[in-house]
């Protein structure tokens, strides 16, 4: 267990809403190893962002963490994230775990130059040597393929969307955090910019040492970056495994449906397997397996009993009663 960076156990997050309680994260368990990239894949509204926000405890005020544990490990010490006080939490954020938000086009303070935002981030974490911070910023901005001098002296509105996204990634790496969470870092961008961001991320993965949690609804993007993939359905992880296993031998019908909607290496597109049925209602999720109303393999058992996440391969887990019949 010594290479563990993050351990999440049985995490439940709810939002009280007018119609009832939205169960956005339902009993999620996973671990992130040092230096690995874990992709969290799922359709819109499946609870990915909520999960990410819970890890840095930035959930909206109304949200409640009902149950669970989040443990963070570094240099042989461990921290219980849900037990941190305000000051410990402030230092944990960005210094240990940086989260770059979904649709972060407006993530930078419009009235401060980029340089000032690098400097105040560093100062908040006790780095007062402005020159050292500037040097590090220049280095990181080069790594994300920006012109450091120009960018540092710009205001956010003077940069394009893709440039801002890169600035945020560079800013995320400023304090050498052990874990970085990127929530849909490419979703708002055009195809070419998406590609270049992915390239930048690949290069950073090779050059620097950090663990990456990559949140996306796009399995093909995940395939380019991830070491392991977890598919999320209705607030729960329904399958997790190495990127190879997930693509070659998915054991959950939902993962299978997702992989079928991805272009294969040979170039021929499978017909986009739009999964029949509508996304689940998180206020009153279906009894038994949450996926059963849309699952071609569903049986009576599926409607009554919720399948546990169980080991289905050497390093692969799935939550399906009939996993043996998926890709037999």
């Amino acid at each position, binding site marked *: 267990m010594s290479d563990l960076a993050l351990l999440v156990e049985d995490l439940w997050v709810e939002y009280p809403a007018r119609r009832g309680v939205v169960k956005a994260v339902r009993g999620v368990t996973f671990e992130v190893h040092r230096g690995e990239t874990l992709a969290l894949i799922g359709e819109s509204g499946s609870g990915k962002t909520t999960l990410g926000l819970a890890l*840095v405890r*930035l959930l909206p005020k109304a949200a409640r963490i009902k149950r669970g544990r989040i443990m963070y490990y570094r240099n042989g010490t461990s921290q219980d994230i849900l037990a941190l006080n305000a000051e410990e939490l*402030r*230092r*944990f*954020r*960005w*210094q240990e775990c*940086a*989260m770059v*938000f979904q*649709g*972060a*086009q*407006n*993530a*930078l*303070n*419009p*009235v*401060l*130059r980029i340089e000032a935002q690098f400097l*105040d*981030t560093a100062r*908040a*974490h006790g780095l007062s040597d402005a020159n050292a911070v500037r040097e590090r910023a220049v*280095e990181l*901005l*080069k*790594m994300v*393929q*920006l*012109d*450091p001098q*120009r*960018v540092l002296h710009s*205001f956010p*509105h003077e940069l394009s969307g*893709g*440039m801002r996204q*890169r600035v*945020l990634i560079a*800013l995320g790496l400023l304090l050498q955090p052990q874990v970085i969470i990127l929530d849909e870092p490419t979703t708002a961008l055009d195809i070419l910019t998406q590609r*270049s961001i992915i390239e930048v991320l690949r*290069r950073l993965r090779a*050059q*620097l040492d950090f663990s990456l949690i990559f949140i996306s609804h796009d399995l093909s993007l995940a395939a380019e970056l991830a070491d392991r993939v977890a598919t999320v359905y209705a607030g729960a992880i329904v399958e997790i495994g190495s990127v190879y296993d997930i693509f070659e031998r998915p054991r959950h019908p939902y993962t299978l449906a997702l992989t079928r909607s991805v272009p294969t290496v040979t170039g021929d597109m499978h017909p986009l397997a739009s999964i029949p049925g509508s996304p689940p209602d998180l206020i009153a999720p279906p009894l038994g397996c949450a996926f059963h109303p849309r699952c071609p393999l569903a049986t009576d058992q599926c409607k009554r009993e919720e399948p546990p996440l169980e080991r289905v391969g050497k390093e692969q887990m799935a939550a399906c009663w009939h996993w043996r019949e998926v890709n037999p």
Partner: protein
Amino acid sequence: MAVQTAPIAVSLPEEVRPNLWQRLTRNYVFRRVIKALATIFVVVTVTFFLIRLMPSNPVEIFIQEQISLYGMSYQEARDQASALFAIDLDAPLGQQYLEYLGNLLQGDLGQSYRSKGTQVVDIIRQFLPWTLFSVGTSLLISFVLGIGLGMLMAYRRETPIDYALSTFASLVSSVPNYLIAIILLVVLGPQLKIINIASMRGSISPGVQPGFTLHFFLDVLYHAAMPIFVYVLTTIGGWMLAMKSSTIATLEEDYVTVARARGLKDGRIMTSYVGRNASLPLFTQLAISIGFVFGGSVLIEGIFVYQGIGQQLIKAINQRDYPVMQGIFLIITVSVIVANLVADLLYSRLDPRIRLGQGETK
């Protein structure tokens, strides 16, 4: 940590180096100053022609008055008017206008027609500073206080302190300023005998020597206290409510959440992230407020017998002293325009998105 890749992504299309004129016309400050000057010019022109062309214009009324009061001949009265208004009435209108402009540029606004021999410029020079002082001070106080209290309300949303301040703010901002002034006058003065209103009249106490002394400064404040208090009271509610809603909106902005994610300290987030952005829209309202308070000063100075330009205007109106009225109107307008300009330039300093050619392009 070797950097293997050359930066490529941000090479902008090479811009053509703009010449001096283009640089000037693109410059926000330059354009704003020009705009202000143009506005002043228009006001000056309109004032002139209104007064000269109205069927019962002041000059004509004055001439008729002189004739009926003193039995002057028309020509005598007309010469008198020329001297007082600093206009040569015999010249064609166009030439009159140019002379009027020339006189203005030299600071010649004509003479008072009630107290003979008194230059309008001297009246302005004597009384305008007091109004600028009281109006400026109260704007500053109410703006700064309003921003602070508005943020407090937003941060303590839906707590008793927010309810109390919100009620106060909506109450004071809905009562007209002269009403508040009169209530204060009656309640604090004769009724409660808390303050001696009579001793607060004027702009300084008799016998106090102007100069950089504490005594003088305190005396000035003492006399300006009531007008300032009324201006602050009537404007602060608006600032508080505006700042509250702006802060609430800003707190929802991504960059505030991201600032928290970056582990910034709460104080830093409150000032540089929330406060600075939330107060931006208020600076545009500052310009409007300046005109409002200035206009209000006419009534308030009358009520408190504060020796400012507003009171002089009332006096001039009562006495139908047209040259003085015209001069004061002009100087109030110019003050408001200049104050607007200052507010705008301040705003452009604070919001980088407005700066240098970025703003006003659409």
